[in-house]
């Protein structure tokens, strides 16, 4: 039904697949060693596959995540925080097909696949060094719409298995300051993907939007606009140049205005829910980059159904008073029911909290 052409690519990998299938392991269960038994699988074009390797997205040792020809790396200007995980992202656009820009939207053809790998370097000061890949989330554009599939990597890092119920695993790493960290990483269940990836109750990509991709990035050793690169690769039409399309900034770029950085942060981290088309529309709190209405941004706005999340505060944002703002209270908590965003937040994103605090404190007091 989708993208039969992908199959050709997979054939190459069939032999290695068969090799894998000979390796048996009687240990079925997971904690502490996760090594599900490999079962032979054929790339028959009927998605989803049980094993990530069956798709054949990566060449060589799968854990190197070296993309096959045609797989395009991408990165949003401001990334979504997920428990300090590093991400390596790729998009597969079927051969002979192209993505199109229409208005501000980036439309990917049926058969496209977004591939997002979540990993932790053992030492954050050496991001290219030893690492552990935790999960790979695929979003596949089928004729019925986008669908998301979470794959969990085995401990030997030889493959990842589809696990719709999600899971949890302990992750250790040394952070940029040389401090050892242990976190309880939670892999969302399949339907939790839509907690974030939700536009009018349809699953929708987040980072793959014109505004998030429209910036200069290093690709294959040279700095190039990502969408220009896609165009060059014959995978995008109607890109008219960087200035002709909306553009998101990198919130971590300290040379840019504070308010813009804060709103860029809120856009990618919050606005997928907190917008008219998102599940948190119930709250009336809308945190998109383009939002200018103070009430919708939460300024002197009372909560609606925040329950526990409101702490002992009255307003989402109290200008000049970050410590009295519900936004900060919720960003600064890991308690389920209080913590925002709801997913990928078993840790606090300290840099994010500092940024939003600085923004709120820079506002003129009531």
């Amino acid at each position, binding site marked *: 039904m989708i993208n039969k052409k992908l199959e050709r690519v997979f054939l190459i990998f069939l032999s290695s697949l068969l090799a894998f299938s000979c390796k048996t392991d009687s240990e079925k269960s997971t904690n502490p060693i996760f090594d599900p038994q490999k079962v032979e699988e054929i790339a028959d074009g009927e998605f989803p596959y049980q094993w990530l390797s069956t798709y054949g997205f990566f060449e060589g040792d799968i854990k190197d995540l070296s993309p096959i020809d045609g797989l395009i790396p991408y990165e949003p200007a401001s990334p979504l925080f997920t428990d300090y995980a590093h991400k390596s992202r790729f998009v597969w656009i079927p051969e002979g097909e192209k993505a199109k820009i229409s208005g501000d939207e980036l439309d990917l053809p049926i058969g496209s696949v977004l591939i997002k790998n979540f990993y932790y370097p053992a030492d954050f000061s050496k991001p290219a060094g030893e690492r552990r890949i935790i999960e790979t989330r695929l979003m596949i554009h089928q004729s019925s719409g986008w669908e998301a599939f979470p794959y969990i990597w085995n401990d030997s890092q030889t493959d990842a298995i589809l696990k719709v*119920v999600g899971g949890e695993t302990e992750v250790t790493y040394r952070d940029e300051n040389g401090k050892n960290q242990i976190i309880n990483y939670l892999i969302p*269940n399949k*339907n939790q993907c839509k907690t974030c990836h939700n536009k009018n109750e349809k699953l929708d990509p987040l980072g793959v939007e014109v505004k998030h991709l429209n910036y200069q990035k290093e690709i294959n050793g040279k700095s190039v606009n990502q969408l220009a690169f896609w165009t060059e690769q014959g995978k995008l039409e109607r890109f008219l140049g960087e200035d002709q399309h909306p553009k998101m900034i990198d919130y971590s770029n300290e040379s840019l205005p504070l308010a813009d950085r804060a709103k860029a942060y809120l856009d990618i981290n919050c606005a997928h829910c907190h917008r*008219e088309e998102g599940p948190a529309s119930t709250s009336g709190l809308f945190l998109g980059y383009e939002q200018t209405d103070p*009430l919708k941004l939460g300024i002197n706005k009372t909560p*609606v159904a925040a329950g526990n999340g409101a702490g002992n505060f009255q307003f*989402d944002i109290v200008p000049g008073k970050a410590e009295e703002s519900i936004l900060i209270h919720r960003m600064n908590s890991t308690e389920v029911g209080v913590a925002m965003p709801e997913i990928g937040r078993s840790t606090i994103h300290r840099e994010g909290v500092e940024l939003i605090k600085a923004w709120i404190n820079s506002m003129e007091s009531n």
Partner: protein
Amino acid sequence: MKKIQILFKSLLFILLLQACGETSHEQLFDSSTLDKRSLEEVEQVVEDFILAENNQTIEIGEGFFDLKTQLILDSKENIIIKGAGMTKTVLSFRNLKTGGEGMKIVGKNITVQDLTIEDAPGDGIKVQHTDGLTLRKVHVTWTHGNKSKNGTYALYPVQCKNVLIDECIAAHSRDAGIYVGQSENIIVKNSLAYGNVAGIEIENCDNAEVFGNTARNNSGGILVFNLPGLPKSDGRGTKIYNNQIIENNHKNFATPMGEGPNGNTVTMIPPGSGVVLLAAKEVEIFDNEILRNKTVGVAVASYQITGFPTDAPNWSPYTSEVYIHDNTYDRSKGMPDLTRELGQLISLYNAHGKAKTQDIVYDGIVDKSRGTNIIDNPMNICISEPKIQDLLFTRFDLSQGEDNIQSYPEVAPFTNCNVRIETDVTGIASR
């Protein structure tokens, strides 16, 4: 209204006394006696939700299911989720580590029945963007000793259409037990809400009927609110009838002990409130038993009373078109609440003497575009109670500021009228 508090320093000792007010830990049954289901059996339920297909029944067997992830049913049609009975199938979300609500549903024509949901960190069951929802014999509760850990709403349909809640039980929510928000065409009937801050709440909804329910031992029994700044900006048309609204004197635990109200409006509800209308439009309250609520039987209030900003598009802070008739009242419970400003207002400034429970209060706030003289009843608040001479009614005048609050016992301006409230829920009544 902040200043009011300063006036009451002398009453501090009473306040302190009341801070240890009533608390309920009542449970329908003890779920710990049920057999605990295995990890595989629990994961099977999660998977059944994820892999559900249209027109399917998801059956959940007997036992105690210790869930570590959310149960999400996403964009499916004609699904029945069925347990083995309220006291047989328990879905516990005590160990949920991510996400808010325990069960989340989006779809069309969905029924959930015969099960219990316990200890969700956020809402018990949230249903959003669903046309056609039936919740029947669903029981949602929290079992924590410390109620400030409890979740927000037990049953939470929001942005839905054609909602039927029937024979459900909602207990110990730190906001509303049965909360229907930003929805239209709603029946809440034959259900029980106890031990919550608010028992049953209809918020920013159109066309709702609430009947045959018992709301007892909450801080507030039944609430009709319209809050500002929401996608569904206002609501109108609610009938509340044949309910037992009894002894809603539970302490307001929406904020932790020792902390006052926060920005959630429900934190302001004074314990001892039977029915509270806030910025409500077109509400009929009749044939209810409104008994032994220590502060007030029915409170008719505009949003200004909260002290929060009242500027929002397509929304009015005023309560208007209200018809209260043929209810029974009982004031025998004792002194009104002093822990919340609205309680203090009623207790200290009512027209009948300090610390007297009121049957009906009206804040007297008028929309000047509809008239300036309260005696002309510009907001169309109509009261027709058979034994009105035996009831305590207070109309406040807050227009002269917090230091000069006036109150009046005369109900006459509001008795010579009636309002016709139109609701039509026949489309869902037969389900």
